[in-house]
């Protein structure tokens, strides 16, 4: 009897945000209208060529296909890709939020990790002095630098919070400035590029027409990892307990300090993963990266149903929250709304999405009561 009861409740939890996504999707498909897009084909050499057709007057004119602006494979693929960086960070941040903390340093941490990874990659790149070490080892080394530094910074955040007994808002506000400052000092404020081609080719690899699989796969992996952590591992349960009632957790013998250390480390790590993907995709890093991401990430978590007072939230919800925010951003572009109004629209829709989500849960609950 219990499992059957469990499923609808779980489904309920994220169905609000899914409804929001569906509503947004329908609106965008409807109002986005269509576009004439040029048609390409992949030649024998693997390069893309435009397709030409013979026009009414016999001339050879480039072929166009009419398709819905929102609802087409490429656009959706791009949406997914653009979402992935924030979504991955949001999963990590959600762990922190669920355990009752907050991590304002993710944006800066992302910048520092990017920059460190980029320095290694440049060293290995065509103009670097380590070009000989090219290949897999090089990329792994860069990944290790990037993720290792990120996890270490996260762990330091956690340690400071635990040892100094200072509110996480303060500690991560401080480390937000410190880490960005470090990124700046390391790079002297210059963009670091010139990577070996291997990584870029890998991260930008497209299956089919425009579907960048790697960031997408990473996002799915992060979601699954977050879901397993929160739902299947004892450690996740401890995080919920600490967020729900820290004192009760302590009375139950949970080592609160250890839990905190873990979630901040994971939050750092997730920012590192996002950073590594992003430098792979965009091919460069600078100390200005990720500015303001902390708020986007927290917004994603909150829109996705994580409670800032701790103890509530899910990995899937948070990723969907990131998707909602990205959809709003690209919806503004799609609908041709004047950029001047973009912030007004974004702000309004974020509030509306959360309200809709709440409304939905409330309705579902009433339904459940009947």
């Amino acid at each position: 009897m219990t499992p059957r009861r469990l499923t609808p409740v779980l489904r309920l939890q994220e169905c609000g945000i899914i409804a929001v996504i569906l509503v947004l999707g329908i609106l965008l498909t409807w109002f986005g209208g269509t576009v004439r897009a040029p048609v390409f084909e992949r030649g024998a050499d693997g390069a893309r060529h435009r397709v030409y057709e013979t026009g009414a007057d016999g001339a050879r004119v480039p072929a166009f296909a009419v398709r819905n602006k929102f609802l087409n494979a490429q656009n959706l693929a791009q949406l997914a890709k653009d979402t992935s960086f924030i979504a991955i960070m949001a999963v990590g941040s959600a762990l922190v939020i669920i355990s009752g903390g907050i991590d304002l340093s993710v944006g800066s941490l992302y910048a520092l990790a990017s920059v460190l990874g980029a320095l290694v990659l440049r060293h290995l790149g065509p103009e670097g002095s380590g070009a000989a070490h090219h290949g897999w080892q090089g990329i792994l080394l860069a990944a290790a630098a990037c993720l290792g530094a990120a996890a270490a910074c996260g762990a330091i955040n956690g340690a400071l919070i635990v040892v100094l007994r200072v509110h996480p808002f303060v500690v991560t506000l401080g480390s937000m400035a410190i880490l960005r400052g470090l990124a700046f000092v390391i790079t002297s404020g210059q963009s670091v590029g010139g990577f070996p081609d291997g990584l870029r080719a890998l991260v930008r690899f497209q299956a089919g027409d425009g579907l960048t699989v790697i960031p997408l796969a990473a996002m799915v992996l992060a979601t699954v990892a977050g879901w397993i952590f929160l739902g299947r591992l004892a450690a996740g349960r401890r995080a919920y307990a600490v967020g729900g009632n820290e004192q009760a957790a302590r009375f139950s013998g949970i080592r609160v300090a250890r839990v905190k250390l873990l979630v901040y480390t994971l939050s750092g790590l997730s920012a590192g993963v996002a950073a590594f993907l992003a430098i792979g995709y965009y091919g460069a890093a600078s100390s200005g990266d990720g500015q303001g991401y902390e708020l986007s990430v927290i917004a994603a978590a909150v829109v996705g149903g994580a409670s800032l007072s701790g103890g509530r939230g899910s990995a899937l919800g948070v990723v969907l929250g990131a998707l909602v925010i990205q959809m709003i951003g690209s919806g503004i572009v799609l609908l041709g709304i004047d950029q001047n109004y973009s912030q007004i629209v974004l702000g309004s829709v974020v509030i509306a999405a959360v309200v809709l989500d709440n409304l939905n849960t409330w309705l579902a609950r009433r339904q459940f009561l009947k």
Partner: protein
Amino acid sequence: RTITIGVIAKSQSNPVFQAARVGAEEAARDLGARLHADIRIDWRTPNDEDAQKQAQAVEQLVLAGADGIAVSCSDANKLTDAINAAVDHGVPVATFDSDAPASRRFVTFGIDDEKCGEVIMATLVKTMNGRGVVAILAGSQNAPNLQKRMRGAVAEAARHPGITIRGVYYHKETPQDAAAKVEQVMEANPDINGWAMVAAACLFTDNALPWQPGAVKCVAMDALPPELAYLRSGQVQVLYAQQCYQWGYRSVELLVDRILLDRSPASVKEVSPLIRVDPSNVDAFARNWDVWLRK
């Protein structure tokens, strides 16, 4: 026929790009009338500087069927792949203000930021007769173009033995924070008698400079309407204006030439010179803004 040109500037919060937007829209109107085409400008500027958002905008524009793209690159490295992908899709790309030299954009129109820093410092040194203590106001630490200007200025100062650099000062990029920073620095270092402002957000306020006209020399970037008052009051000696209206106008012109007339520019690099504004030409220059910021 209808053509859409995507224009991506660095940030909405920087007022110079609003002039670029007016320029682009006016170019679209002028050229549309001349060439009997319906030219649309699709303005896709991130709210704050973010090269990744710019790269995403390039990708989105390609998907949305833009016929050409003009972009001012916040981070050249990050936009290179996106620009190349757009070109692969048959969408010509022009850069303005900040170039991505390694990409396959067909033209770039703009200043050289490093050069710009040098010019500012050189002018300052001249007004100070080659001797004195200078400070550099450099805006946000993490804006790559400002970093380049700052380096240019530092390098130029190093060539003048009579000049000491007291420091390079960063601040949150709001006019008031910038103005507060200048006050603080002057309070802590009353010996400073020259300011090179490679980012001059502080001059967007009316009373930023805590010195009597002439007591401290100042050369600053940009010549937006609020800044001109300082030239008139004598607190600032020279302003260097960027052709921000032209960034938009000329980029669109180059793109339309390419798309509709299949004409390529003579050279990939088209330099937009800095305009020197000093008390002698300030009133003439001020009239430009009536055109450049027309709503």
